[in-house]
């Protein structure tokens, strides 16, 4: 009896402590987004309006999609360095084949998703480092994109352009789209029973395979989802820009990784947060606008985004450290 009365209070106290720390970590991405919005508002109050937010956040939709795709891969302890040029390739296909020959265009895009699944299968079966394989794929996708569209041009299909220019009532379209992306990814990965298996495969692959689940299938699904998100990102991007360029989205690789990390995800261990990843993507997009308002030249914007990443990661480390020493 004396054991129970002693063990119980300490474990409850511990879990309360963990809850507090987890809550703080969970709101950190939202807090950084709020800070950026506040800073923009302070510099230029008129920017925080329906029209202003639509303008500033329009590019956030493809970034958020690419970030969620990256998150799928990071959830199973891999990294996708090819997502940037892949989004570019999808953009080139969208601006040419999908507009001129929709059927062939769709087939190409489906084939690209299947290719992503095969990359996942290869990484799992041959036990290859994903960084190396996807770095190679980066150049493969880029080469294909140049073959499809040797010089910048093409046209977005009208329906796609129309879709991206939709004016939703009250709340700007990019925010609605980001919400939908975040909620779909959250429900799929965090709430469904199979999502648990997929995340478990990142946390302890041996345990998951011992329980009778196929790791190969899990990895193929996650890479397939990443490819699917990449396709959506590429299409969304072309819907906004209306014409394509093979190198249009090369920066998305690092942007998507930064978005996942900013949103509370980690490189290993299956620790990811879909809502956080979308917030991270929004934060990075808005950071560009903020730097514009501060009259900092676009040359410095990548550095600015990097600085934000470092600040947020430092805050997260501080929270963790406070938890350990408490």
């Amino acid at each position: 009896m004396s054991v129970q009365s002693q063990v119980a209070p300490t474990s409850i106290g511990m879990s309360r402590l963990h809850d507090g720390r987890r809550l703080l970590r969970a709101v950190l991405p939202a807090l950084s987004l709020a800070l950026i919005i506040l800073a923009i508002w302070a510099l230029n109050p008129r920017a925080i309006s329906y029209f202003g937010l639509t303008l500033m956040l329009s590019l956030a939709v493809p970034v958020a999609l690419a970030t969620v795709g990256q998150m799928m891969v990071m959830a199973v302890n891999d990294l996708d360095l090819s997502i940037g040029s892949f989004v570019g390739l999808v953009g080139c296909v969208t601006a040419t084949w999908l507009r001129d020959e929709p059927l062939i265009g769709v087939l190409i895009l489906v084939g690209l998703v299947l290719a992503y699944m095969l990359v996942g299968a290869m990484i799992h079966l041959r036990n290859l480092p994903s960084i190396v394989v996807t770095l190679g794929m980066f150049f493969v996708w880029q080469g294909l994109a140049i073959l499809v569209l040797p010089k910048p041009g093409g046209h977005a299909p009208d329906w796609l352009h129309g879709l991206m220019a939709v004016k939703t009532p009250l709340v700007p379209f990019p925010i609605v789209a980001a919400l939908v992306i975040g909620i779909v990814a959250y429900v799929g990965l965090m709430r469904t029973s199979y999502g648990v298996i997929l995340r478990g495969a990142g946390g302890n692959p041996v345990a998951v395979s011992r329980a009778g689940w196929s790791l190969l299938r899990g990895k193929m699904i996650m890479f397939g989802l990443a490819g699917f998100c990449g396709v959506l990102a590429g299409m969304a991007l072309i819907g906004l820009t209306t014409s394509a360029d093979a190198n249009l989205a090369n920066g998305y690789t690092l942007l998507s990784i930064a978005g996942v990390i900013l949103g509370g995800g980690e490189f290993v261990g299956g620790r990811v947060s879909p809502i956080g990843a979308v917030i991270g993507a929004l934060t990075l997009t808005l950071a560009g606008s903020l730097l514009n308002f501060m009259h900092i030249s676009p040359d410095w914007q990548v550095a600015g985004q990097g600085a934000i990443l470092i600040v947020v990661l430092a805050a997260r480390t501080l929270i963790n450290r406070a938890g350990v020493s408490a």
Partner: protein
Amino acid sequence: MSQSPVVIQVEGVAKSFGAVRALDGVDLAIATHECVGLIGHNGAGKSTLMHVLAGTLTPDKAAIQVNGDAQPGYGIELAHKLGIRCVFQELSLCPNLTVAENARILHPALRGFGWRRRAGALIKAKLDEVFPGHGLSADAVVSDLAIGQRQMIEIARAFTVTSEPLRLVILDEPTSSLDGHTAAQLFAFIRRSVEAGLSCILISHLLGEILGTSDRVVVMRDGRVVTSGPTASFDRNKLVAAMGGAEAHSGAVTAATPSTGLVRVRIRPKRQPDGRELVAREGEVIGLAGLAGHGQTDLLLAVFDAAGQLKSGQAEVTEPVALVAGDRQSDGVFPLWSIAENIGVGSLKNLRRGLLISEAAEDELAAQWQKRINIRTPDMRHSILSLSGGNQQKALFARALGSDARIVLMDDPMRGVDIGTKLDVYDLVRGEARAGRTFLWYTTEMDELSYCDRVYVFRNGVIAADLMRSEVSEDSVIGASFAEVG
């Protein structure tokens, strides 16, 4: 017992890993209403046999029958379908998931709307049944829990039932991270389950657990079953003899006079309310006892951190220290390195010739320690993972003792190590202590405290009692671990 139906029967199981024959023709049959205790040295083949039974390892040769039917394509899926579960020695929970989500991983049937609630209720009910008063929540994330709590969850999870039947649960060292109280709860539960018709295989290095819980004992050595019979016909010495280990000697240490050597370590636990402090002198073996997870490891780490700083607040550590980790998978071995490199990393300064590390010196150090503590391998340049768990632990001891550290911290290093290895290490510790080294030894095994000159019992992160060797007994340690303050 012979009239009870047989749950699983294996004949002629053989499995080799390269040149090592892990299993060399094992026959084993488990009946319903039976708890079989399986013992043997490290490397005797117990874990390999368990992996074969659980379907996670395909044997080179075997005839496997479940409920009387031959199972040619036996594997993980079939084992699950037939109701055979295993609690593996290395924990297999996903740390990034909650307790309920980990339960879901084991049960394909937990799906569809409301699966999370059902999974939570399932694991909670089983935890309540096995470990009453456990204080765990189904929504807790596993990485936030202590290792003992994780082990409780893993054990309870193995006994949960949804759509598939449950016939046999294999427990491989289930108490390695449990304290005495929870271990007792587990054994009572195993007995109740076996009465109700379940079968169990219990693997443990604590012979008392085997003798107290199992109906039948099976002893393995060198990949074969050497003896088996009703538990009642065995006692501790017989089991040790059957395993081929040394005779069990009970705390065979002569009474020592209190040491008057130089003080090497002086430290006060962070939240110690009174003036009590832990003092370790030259040539002493200091035991840290108490229930698992009550601040012993934290204290060792505090000593480790304080080393090298001349005087740091609460701690005074005068000599270099080395730590022998308890959780060798996460804190101990470098899995990509060879055995020799794993030993040499503790003494890099001494192995340096000019700017580089001398391989010859590293080999020499490794060969010397291979001989001294009998690391069983054909070549010290093989990967550390080619060793069995006990021999990996020996390599970690060699790393610490081969370095020039005068203070050695041991964080319950004997978890899941066979008794032969233990006796080797006990002798080594005594010998090194006589030569002037100081040991701080956290242990969860009562027997090991008899090798200590002085024992500090921890409770809730502070020193609750400080016992001279003559005062150390099971009663005094348990008394101090459980007593209320004041």
